[in-house]
């Protein structure tokens, strides 16, 4: 028994060593850039993510963690290090609520940065408003885009899907779409319903195929989608669901009969290689940020920070880009504050004042502002699976979702 325990302990230690930080390849740009480790009183910042469960949504938090480590190694926030607390909500609203209460009330976080969860926004939006906590997250459900205190850096699946359909209608000849979605709160009506509303205005029919997220039967879902006789099948899952549904579709050789497109959740490094050559030129995805291999200064810096301060196994994906940007904006805001007066109230006020953030990682400017809800990122691109990677197609374009009307009106009135 003891021998087994020692063996397992040794195996786990080896695995952890293998996951340890990779050596720095270039000197990344972050915070004060002075090379001095921060030693003052830590500033607590939280992040809630669905880590264990159907999929791992911690890429944004891992990127923010790498950025904050870089900041802490380079003078911190005028001498004060950031204490970044990443917690797992296990895809459970009750857990999300518990951990948020702990972060807000016990750990006294000054902000939440880089969160990404299916259940968190709905469970905690009220708490964040009551306690005046600002959240810069990666929004994946409707409730992440309807709160005063939750500010997504990404477009979200709704805009991402509309953007993909807009491109498919303009360039791939899409007229009839089967929207395949998990039966989750806020997903079916908000996503597929939204695509149908957009389609009505643009002569595209959208019908739904709804499946239980716990089901292991994607073949029936694909057959059901085919039975609707669409020309395009839109997948709205996370990467795990994409892999399962594309494998089922490949089994039925559906890739040669239908166009397969997805939300930005499909834009994952390694996904084209995982799904195989069959999908070369056949599987399209939308991009919430600019391409992952972009050569602009911010994109290069993101990759350098991930190499220097992240783990080798941390994904370098679209959510990771968002986590990096969220951490960067938060750091810039904190650096402008008097380090002795950094608390939740001063940080929330300073974050609400953020305007006109520009980066080569985004198709347009980003801002926070005082709006009742936030959806500043509304321009994107598309890419297609090609030779084991992603080939970007075309340039950035604005997404014309009718749901954005209030945001666009506020921007015209000066919210940007």
């Amino acid at each position: 028994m003891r021998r087994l325990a020692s063996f397992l302990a040794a195996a786990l230690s080896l695995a952890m060593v293998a996951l340890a930080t990779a050596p720095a390849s270039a000197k990344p740009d972050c915070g004060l850039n002075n090379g001095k480790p921060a030693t003052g009183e830590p500033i607590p910042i939280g992040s809630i993510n669905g880590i264990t469960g159907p999929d791992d949504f911690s890429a944004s938090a891992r990127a923010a963690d790498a950025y904050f480590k870089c900041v802490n190694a380079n003078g911190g926030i005028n001498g004060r290090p950031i204490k970044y607390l990443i917690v797992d909500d296990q895809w459970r609203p009750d857990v999300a609520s518990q951990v948020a209460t702990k972060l807000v009330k016990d750990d006294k976080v000054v902000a939440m940065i880089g969160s990404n969860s299916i259940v968190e926004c709905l469970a905690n939006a009220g708490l964040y408003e009551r306690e005046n906590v600002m959240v810069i997250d990666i929004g994946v459900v409707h409730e992440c885009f309807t709160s005063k205190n939750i500010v997504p850096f990404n477009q979200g699946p709704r805009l991402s899907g509309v953007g993909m359909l807009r491109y498919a209608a303009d360039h791939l000849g899409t007229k009839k779409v089967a929207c395949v979605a998990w039966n989750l709160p806020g997903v079916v009506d908000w996503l597929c319903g939204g695509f149908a509303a957009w389609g009505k205005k643009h002569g595209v029919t959208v019908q739904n195929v709804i499946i239980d997220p716990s089901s292991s039967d994607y073949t029936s879902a694909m057959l059901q989608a085919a039975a609707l006789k669409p020309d395009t099948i839109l997948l709205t899952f996370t990467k795990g669901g994409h892999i399962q549904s594309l494998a089922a579709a490949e089994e039925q050789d559906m890739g040669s009969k239908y166009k397969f497109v997805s939300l930005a959740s499909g834009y994952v490094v390694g996904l084209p290689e995982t799904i195989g050559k069959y999908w070369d030129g056949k599987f399209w995805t939308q991009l919430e940020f600019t391409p992952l291999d972009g050569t602009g200064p911010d994109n290069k810096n993101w990759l350098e920070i991930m190499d220097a301060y992240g783990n080798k196994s941390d994904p370098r994906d679209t959510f990771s880009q968002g986590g990096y940007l969220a951490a960067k904006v938060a750091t810039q805001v904190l650096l402008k504050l008097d380090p002795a007066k950094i608390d939740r109230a001063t940080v929330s006020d300073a974050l609400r004042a953020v305007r006109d953030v520009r980066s080569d990682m985004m198709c347009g400017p980003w801002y926070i502002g005082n709006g009742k809800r936030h959806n500043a990122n509304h321009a994107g691109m598309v890419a297609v699976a090609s030779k084991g990677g992603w080939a970007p197609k075309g340039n950035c374009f604005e997404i014309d979702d009718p749901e954005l009307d209030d945001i666009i009106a506020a921007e015209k009135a000066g919210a940007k």
Partner: protein
Amino acid sequence: MNLLPFVAAGIGLGSVYALAGVGLVVLYRSSGTLNFAFGALGAIGAYCTWSILQVGIPPAIAWAAGIAVATALSFAYGWLIAPLLRHRDRAVRAIGTLGFALFILGCTGLIWGEAVPRRLTLPTDKMYAMIFSVRVTYTRLLALLLALGMVGAIALLLARTRLGLSMRALAADRNISSLIGIRVVRVDAIAWLVSGVFAGVAGLLLADLVALNATFLTFLVIPAIAAAIFGRLQSLAATALGGLVAGITEAVLIAVPVGSFYRSAAPFVLALLFITLFGGRRTAVLHE
């Protein structure tokens, strides 16, 4: 709407349930323990296979290594942990395996995580039979054959060998078995070893058919329980058949407007109906 394609898809899904269900019952028949860790053992074997394939080692070696890992872990549990629970009732022993499943799930999460997209493919994915104009890959048929093969192999082992006799005795009553000279720990460990081999093979097939995802594979034992109930935790053949029926029902329900939302509950609803209608005294085994 033509439901026949969904029936064919259901045969594919049913083969998954049948395999997982038989895996659950196989150890129950041979040592009296319901093995909730069957899916997790298969998952960790499949992850090992995936990792080995990534470094370019030939598939046959990678598959063998994956099966070996599942077998070794299963044997280790049967040799080291299971004896500590030998005097506890069946429910406690079953919960012990659930703990083991969660431990393995934690280890796979720690070592591999879900951040990287993964897929395990087998050469049989490219070969298929057309059933009701739906392609049913050989991997799915292989899963069904393996489930039936396990049924036959275990039935033969239990009925025709001395070891099988000892296993049956052990499954029936541990105390009396030890009194009549059966080496309980040894026979138990062998049962775990056999179950581990099946878990390893099933893990490779299920990772291909369902997903290379530890959580998914670990909790595949839940619909498998429904299949096992069809077999009253005793009959391996009825379990395999139950898995098939559950799979076909679940697949066909997607074509029924309201049914599609609740179709993953189909195996349990069927199992409950089965107990209600045909349960009687013979379901007593479920309460032991």
